[in-house]
């Protein structure tokens, strides 16, 4: 199996899967080295991006998924009228931003930063898969810890948390 075969096979599997497929699962099924699969996927993603192909390869952490090219969203919306994804409300986004930068974090710690109760926001974010439970903190009462989930990467169209902009510095002028 040469690199080209590998790319084509990965593409076919991803097309049928629809959902994200783990690189390790792909490697096991193709009896290939995970690193090789990862490299082939990157190459495939690069080519498709370069060609401006309608279908792009999205990397979500250690998973791969096919998605439509964002540049053509206008045409998709005209042709198919898909249900528009809703923007997160300000309170959900604030809560999510804190989890994204401070994960794993407890709800109490989030509330400390926001200065308001966050029961609802945390529950809603879990419901949507944007955050997930990530064990319990070894502290009084063993509070639940939260971290971002795969859906977080998908919602913001990024491949890993490292793509997030660095947290703005605390500016002394407070402007």
């Amino acid at each position, binding site marked *: 199996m040469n690199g080209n075969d590998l790319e084509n096979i990965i593409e076919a599997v991803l*097309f*049928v*899967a*629809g*959902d994200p497929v783990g690189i390790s699962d792909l490697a096991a099924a193709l009896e290939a080295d995970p690193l090789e699969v990862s490299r082939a996927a990157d190459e495939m993603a690069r080519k498709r991006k370069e060609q401006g192909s309608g279908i*792009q390869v*999205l990397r979500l952490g250690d998973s791969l*998924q*096919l*998605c*439509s*090219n*964002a540049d053509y*969203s206008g045409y*998709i919306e*005209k042709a*198919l*009228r*898909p249900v*528009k*994804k809703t*923007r*997160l409300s*300000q*309170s959900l*986004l*604030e809560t*999510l*931003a*804190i989890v*994204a*930068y401070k994960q794993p974090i407890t709800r109490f710690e989030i509330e*400390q*930063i*926001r*200065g*308001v*109760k966050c029961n609802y926001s945390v529950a809603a974010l879990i419901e949507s898969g944007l955050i997930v439970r990530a064990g319990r903190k070894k502290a009084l009462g063993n509070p639940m810890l939260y971290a971002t989930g795969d859906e977080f990467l*998908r*919602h*913001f*169209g*990024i491949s890993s948390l490292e793509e*997030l*902009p660095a*947290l*703005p*510095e*605390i500016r*002394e*002028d*407070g*402007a």
Partner: protein
Amino acid sequence: MEGDDYRVQIRQFEGPLDLLLHLINRARISIEDIFVSEVTGQYLEYVSSMGRLSMDGASEFLQMAALLVYIKSRMILPFEDEEDFGDEGDPEQLLIESLKTYKMYRDACEALRGFEEKGSRVYYRLPEEIAFSGERIEIEDVSLCALSEAYKDVLSRKPDGGAERIEEVEISREIYTIRERAKFILSRLSGVNCSTFFSMFAEGRTRMEVAVTFVALLELIHESIVTIKQEGHFGDIYITRLKEEAV
């Protein structure tokens, strides 16, 4: 109504820190200068104007108000210089710190909004529905006749000799989709720009047809493609097109 105004106002702010940042911004001062500005006074004014608002939503605002009054009072009254705050630290500095931290995440939110917009333009497909075969069952040396005999045998074991029939239920295909109905509504609006909901249906309409068309109409309103007017309950709905869309 007075009470309703407060409700709208409080909805605008995510909490006391949000409100304080808003006031600081409006006063064009830096966070450090909060206690030598009008901001704390404005905050207290705002909270007292919240008036009859339910305590549920207002408790965090009131807690902050109490803290601000406490800090202000400390500044006015002569205190010993070396006041002991225990592990907590100076409440004034603590508040300034939490305002800064909160502001940092608020700024991060704005950056995330940009990513969110980009992410919302990407679409995915649903998984292919494939009946993946599980374990294979190998049957050897069995003729069709033997299978048929075995089947009869099973049926005959039932008390009524297999005469019992499962009641037949006809499941008709759903022929109406929201997307198709939305197109239909728009097609009825082409050229005329105004039509009525009742006129969308022929004599032999079905309940499903009316229901799906109605949902499609709601979807079009939601997308600001059409607007509606209705004169009283159960009256006809007048549908007017707002903008041109490719159908």
